[in-house]
């Protein structure tokens, strides 16, 4: 057990180092940050001084080593654009992204699972067909377009919901929340629906497919033969058995919800980490970009790590072939 975890842990470290390296290397090619930092009248000499002071003239590996060592200590340096510590910026932005992602994920589950069950059970119903074709739209329309359409309908035409920002937030000292004010809650609706839509359709289609699969299996037939109530078969036998992969996927998707939030945050000017990242890209703010990618990389690695360990706990077969581990 311990060697399994240690092995997984070592793998995670390697992945993180690679993510850091790729992120950092990529940024060598996004343009000269100096130009975005100074005004048009700033002379070449001043630009060169600044370049020297920021260490941009050092060799690549020196810059990376400096970055990696600092990152381990949670220190991502100073944002070129905001002129503040990056770690402080990330902590400031994280609540907005996490609240949005949480609501998005809950929404996707709460609507997606029942809709999947319904469409699986009433395969030929009119409503099922409507939901299924609607879900095709959800998968195929890009997120930013959904966001813009929602803004147009609910913000511009009906004027019932705010079109940008988080509304009023309550500062708890270590966390800012939009859950406690009316305008904060109203502001959450459009972005979280936008963010949830893709995941929702994914979960719904997954639940439906799994349900159909399980409903065909022998033990369902036997259950029917034993005269168990249909309702009971559907919900305690079929649904339970189809939920295992759903839970796995949902866990993994949580990471991508946080990452996907970039687009939603941009469309709704939602002041989270994604917006910070997009702005950093435009301003060639290397420390922020690098830190963001490392943080998102960490979220993914961490979730994967937990899922791996959960498998180990849940699935006894893994324990047997730990000698040949490495998948």
């Amino acid at each position, binding site marked *: 057990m311990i060697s399994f975890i240690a092995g997984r842990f070592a793998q995670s470290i390697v992945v993180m180092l690679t993510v850091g390296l790729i992120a950092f290397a990529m940024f060598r090619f996004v343009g000269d940050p100096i130009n975005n*930092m100074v005004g048009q*009248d*700033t002379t070449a000499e001043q630009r*060169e001084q600044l370049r020297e002071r920021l260490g941009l003239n050092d060799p690549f590996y020196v810059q990376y080593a400096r970055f990696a060592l600092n990152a381990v200590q949670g220190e991502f340096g100073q944002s070129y654009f905001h002129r503040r510590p990056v770690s402080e910026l990330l902590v400031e932005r994280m609540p907005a992204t996490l609240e949005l992602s949480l609501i998005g994920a809950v929404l996707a589950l709460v609507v997606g699972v029942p809709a999947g069950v319904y469409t699986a059970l009433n395969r030929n119903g009119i409503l099922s067909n409507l939901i299924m074709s609607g879900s095709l739209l959800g998968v195929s329309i890009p997120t930013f377009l959904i966001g813009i359409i929602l803004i147009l309908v609910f913000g511009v035409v009906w004027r019932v919901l705010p079109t*940008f920002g988080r509304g009023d937030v309550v500062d708890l000292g270590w966390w800012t929340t939009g859950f406690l004010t009316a305008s904060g809650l109203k502001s959450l609706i459009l972005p979280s629906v936008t963010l949830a839509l893709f995941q929702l359709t994914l979960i719904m289609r997954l639940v439906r497919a799994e349900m159909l699969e399980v409903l065909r299996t022998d033990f369902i037939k036997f259950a029917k033969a034993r005269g168990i109530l249909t309702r009971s078969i559907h919900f305690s036998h079929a649904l339970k058995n189809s939920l295992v992969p759903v839970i796995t996927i949902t866990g993994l998707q949580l990471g991508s919800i946080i990452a996907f939030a970039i687009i939603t945050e941009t469309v709704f000017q939602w002041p989270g980490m994604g917006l910070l990242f997009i702005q950093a890209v*435009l301003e060639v703010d290397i420390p922020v970009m690098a830190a963001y990618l490392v943080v998102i990389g960490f979220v993914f690695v961490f979730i994967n790590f937990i899922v791996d360990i959960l498998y180990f706990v849940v699935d006894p077969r893994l324990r047997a072939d730990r000698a040949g581990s490495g998948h």
Partner: protein
Amino acid sequence: MLNRKKLLAAVAVAAIAFATPAMAKTFKWAFQGSLSTLDPHGLNETFLLGTLGNVYEGLVDYDADLQLIPALAESWEIVEPTKWVFKLRKGVKFHDGQDFTADDVIFSWKRSGTEGSDQKVRYALIADIKKIDDHTIEVTTPAPNPLMAQDLVFLKIMDKEWSEEHGSVEATNVKGGDEGNYANMHTNGTGPFMITENTQDVRTVFKRYDGYWKDIKSNVTEAIMTPIAQDATRVAALLSGELDLVFPVPVQDWKRLEEAEGVEPLTGPEARTIFLGMDQFRDELLYSDIKGKNPFKDKRVRAAFAHAIDLETIKKRVMRGASTPTGLMVAPQINGFNEALNEPYKYDPEMSKKLLAEAGYADGFTVTMDCPNDRYVNDERICQAVASMLAKVGVKVEVFAQTKSKYFGKVLQQNGYDTSFYLLGWTPGSIDSHNVLSNIMSCQNVDAKVGLFNLGNYCNAKVDELTKQVEKETDQAKRQAYIDEAFKIHKDEYGHLPLHQQPLSWGIREGVDLAQRGDNVLDFRNVVLP
């Protein structure tokens, strides 16, 4: 004592009785980005300094028409060519209640020269400031410079005591300490508004300062700026009635704003001139199929380019009628502009073909054009239009458009002017022609810090000499004559090819009254809400 109190009370009652009912008026507006620092010496950028101009003030200021007006200085005179005496305004108080004095001016000037400052160019305009009394200073310049006052608009004055108390005697450094400079996050100016909240990418809240020294027409008691990066979201926020003003608005959306109820586009010519430049110094172009020589060294080729570009078509097709075609490198708002010289190069493709043939390029040639795609209004589309017009006279232009940071990283001095043909825009920060002459039309000279943005190194000794004279000359008529002569030479030699002034493009709620300044700055002093 008691009497005084009573008197005060009586005055207070009277004030309340006579004042119009103090209604809270909140002005909500959105721009595409946020304030990257609150330190007025931290970044030399027009939008930032212009917006901070509501909070901090310089010795002088611009009015709604970009005319120079006294601000913290009541008056000034040039006593010797290099010596100025400024009379400072009395009775001005900073937001924290401290008096404004000569010490604050000297302190702020010194602060603008500290290591982290991005205002060193303005710091260098002054050699020394001597305090004569609390409200009189004597300023010495390193060389005669009749325009010095013009450049002081964006050199903002901070309070010495406040800065010292909070350990902010040096300008915010880009790298800075971990806690950040106090002035990076807090403000204490003399302007009509105070910043009470500033959260990056979320909002900046400006509260009216009751002790402001000047009567202004604005009835705004609170202004909230929200940065909205996405064009579509910004326009939608205006349409939804949540905001009073947004800018910039994409030119394509003007019609939509006109048709929508309760909002309208607000447009005008910006003081920025968009122009094309050509590499005129290399013996062989970096990006062309002509080897062994540089076609742009031949004036006839440059002329052929000028006469092949139809500015009216660019205006109509690309800019939706919203640009002002121009023949000069400076806009009408800029000091030194002369309408008589502003006639654009004539559109005459036949002449272009003839000129190219004469120069030995009857079959044309190929050249790559560098172009930003997110810096100026419709920049990439202008480049494409230019390319298709030049194609008609046989020159094949390959447009290489990229994001502004990549573009500037390629073509500017730090990268050795890596371009053969490019599009650039320029607003002279001092609103004076000398800035353009010195930065764009003078021969490149890194040591003298001139011609640094003359990417193609158009170089004429006479223009250089005239530029130096323009800098020194105090007589306005003579000075204008020098400017005219330099511009005329540059124009006759097709040094650069000016295209147009791009439009300012704002969207406002109907009933909101404000001034749209040519440098794209929003001054709350002029905002009146219904």
